């Protein structure tokens, strides 16, 4: 039993963190605000080159063959860095393609040539034949496929098959949003949920990103509490501030521990994997949302500005909190499980 990162994992995450801080600074989100894509192609390909898109993919398709725990640790860095771009969709898409017997497709996703956007079905249905209905699509620009999760499984559908996408104003300046209404579009790949519950994997990676956000806002708030002076003293001496920072730290720690527990539970096929993953999603969403809100408050007026990063953490946390599963469904789903193993 070991729930702490190994030396190799620490090295891996340090390399990912360095890439994001150097190549994908948060200020870039503001700079690219009006660009069609939230991330430029050159950086995307550099990330692929570094292996970020193939961590858990088999070596046959150009991946590293690592575990979901490794991948989750890297997604925690993506969350911490607020890195924009279709990382989540493409990594999950590659997994789907491998399991659906399309290694060729998976290989082109792992090396960054084929990007996969996430699509949330608003109404309608998706199945082995394809999909029909109304969709919200995240970061569609430059994508070849969209990934759609349904009750019975997950599908990859060509973005072109969705017809005209109507751009929408999204809450997060680092996530492009569009909607599509589709009569019928066929699935390029279909992965039945009983073969692999891809939604649980998606929830683990989203939870890991939420953990990264919770940790980032904890650190940003603590730094500000140390440096901002009012009434002749740093504001962090006041317990109204200090204790809020402490609560952020505890929530982030709980979320991290549970997310790693969930990742390992899913990967090792434990009987209680769904229980553990839903719990991870619930605590990590809360840690990120509460933490991001507290961080804005601790920054005062500056926290309310567009120029500061505080709102970007909050907005990304809201996006992730609403992906793949709504909160009430996560709670209901958890309560419906048998007790943890």
């Amino acid at each position, binding site marked *: 039993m070991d729930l702490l990162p190994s030396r190799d994992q620490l090295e891996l995450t340090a390399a990912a963190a360095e890439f994001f801080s150097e190549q994908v600074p948060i200020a870039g989100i503001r700079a690219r605000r009006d660009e069609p894509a939230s991330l430029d192609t050159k950086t995307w390909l550099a990330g692929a080159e570094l292996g970020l898109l193939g961590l858990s993919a088999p070596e046959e398709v150009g991946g590293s063959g690592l575990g979901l725990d490794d991948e989750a640790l890297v997604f925690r860095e993506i969350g911490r860095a607020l890195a924009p771009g279709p990382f989540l969709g493409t990594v999950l898409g590659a997994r789907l393609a491998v399991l659906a017997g399309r290694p060729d497709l998976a290989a082109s996703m792992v090396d960054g040539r084929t990007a996969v956007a996430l699509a949330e079905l608003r109404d309608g249905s998706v199945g082995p034949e394809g999909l029909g209905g109304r969709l919200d699509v995240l970061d569609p620009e430059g994508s070849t496929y969209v990934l759609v999760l349904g009750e019975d499984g997950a599908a990859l559908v060509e973005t072109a098959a969705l017809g005209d996408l109507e751009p929408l104003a999204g809450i997060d300046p680092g996530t492009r949003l569009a909607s599509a209404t589709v009569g019928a579009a066929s699935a390029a790949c279909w992965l039945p949920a009983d073969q692999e519950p891809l939604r649980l994997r998606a929830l683990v990676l989203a939870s890991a990103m939420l953990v990264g956000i919770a940790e980032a806002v904890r650190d940003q708030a603590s730094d500000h509490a140390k440096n901002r002076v009012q009434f002749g003293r740093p504001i962090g001496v006041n317990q109204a501030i200090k204790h809020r920072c402490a609560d952020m730290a505890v929530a982030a720690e*709980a979320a991290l521990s549970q997310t790693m527990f969930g990742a390992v539970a899913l990967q090792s096929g434990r009987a209680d994997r769904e229980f553990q993953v839903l719990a991870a999603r619930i605590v990590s969403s809360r840690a990120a949302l509460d933490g991001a809100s507290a961080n804005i408050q601790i920054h005062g007026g500056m926290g309310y500005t567009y120029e500061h990063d505080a709102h970007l953490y909050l907005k990304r946390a809201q996006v992730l909190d609403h992906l793949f599963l709504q909160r009430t469904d996560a709670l209901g789903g958890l309560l419906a499980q048998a007790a943890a193993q």
Partner: protein
Amino acid sequence: MDLDFSPEQVQFREEVRTWLTEHVPREQRPEEPAGMREFDLGWQRTQWEGGWAGIAWPEQYGGRGLTLVQQLIWYEEYARTGLPGIDANFVGLSHAGPTLMTRATEEQKAFHLPRILRGDVVWCQGFSEPGAGSDLAALSTRAVIDGDELVVTGQKIWTSFANIADHQELLVRTTRGDSKHHGITWVICDMNSPGIDVRPIETIEGGAEFCEVFYDEVRIPLENVVGGVDDGWRVAMSTLSFERGTAFTANQVRLADTVEKLIDTAREHPGPDGRRPAIEDDEIARRLATARAEVAALRAMTYAGVCRNLRTDTPGPEGSMLKLYYAEVAKEVGRLAMDVIGPDALRLVSRWAPGGGWTGNYFYSFSQSIGGGTSEIQRNIIGDRVLGLPR
């Protein structure tokens, strides 16, 4: 990372489970002091005889010499029996014992440690005073050196189990100087010494294991000092780091079972509308699910904490995060139960009653954010020592 237990650990769990099924006490724990003492020591003695005492203690002191992983397995299996935890053996096993192991002389260890494991003695903790609670270093119970003895005069308060204890880990002031942290001494006090007066204090739960202790020129041999005269603060800090680090593992593990029991209760018990089961009430259902998620996270944090402790001997300030999270979740669970049981919330049922009492547990839950350092103090520690915020 993995969640797998080794074949030996799996076998260990099997053995624990089998043994517990056969040996766990079936009768209800007496509420009066003498009976409680007999019950708690008897149970400890049974564990000792079965070879389960001091699982992670070194063999030379009578322990099994295994790791905290096996200790964790024991707590998990013990929690499954549904018995409440914290009892009169807590201070000996989780505070005094570990502190003696790291700070005491070989003679002190050889004398005291096996007695704790065998269930011969009850220990209590004499740290808090009327004027020194959160600000422990403000303690003023005086000790003057007279020949080869310390002569102690003063008062302690909130001393759990002082009324049935044989020994006490006692903090006294030997020197009054510029720094309140200097001049404190950690000493082993024989609770049968002349000059000690123990008065029980009834608690919110109704029990009377809580005491105030008065010392009137109590003579304690200097050889009972642990870690050197005037150097007791450092010893006390290691006691507290055990308290915040590993001592609550049993409670944390038990809380998960409490939540499962509460969910079962909510499935059977009529809810706020008096007709449908409580679990069909949306608000109760969501709070139950949230509690389930939180105790899952508490367990994951406990596992991570055990892994961290396997890498270092003395727990660091991270223990405060676990303690704080646990206390807050425990209180929410205590309160949620009062909503789940609806009108039955008027009836006082002890947490030691067969099947466990939700109302007794509710009142008990308030102690979790006070004892062992309040939640506010844990937040200070996290702010100062984990996050490095200014004081």
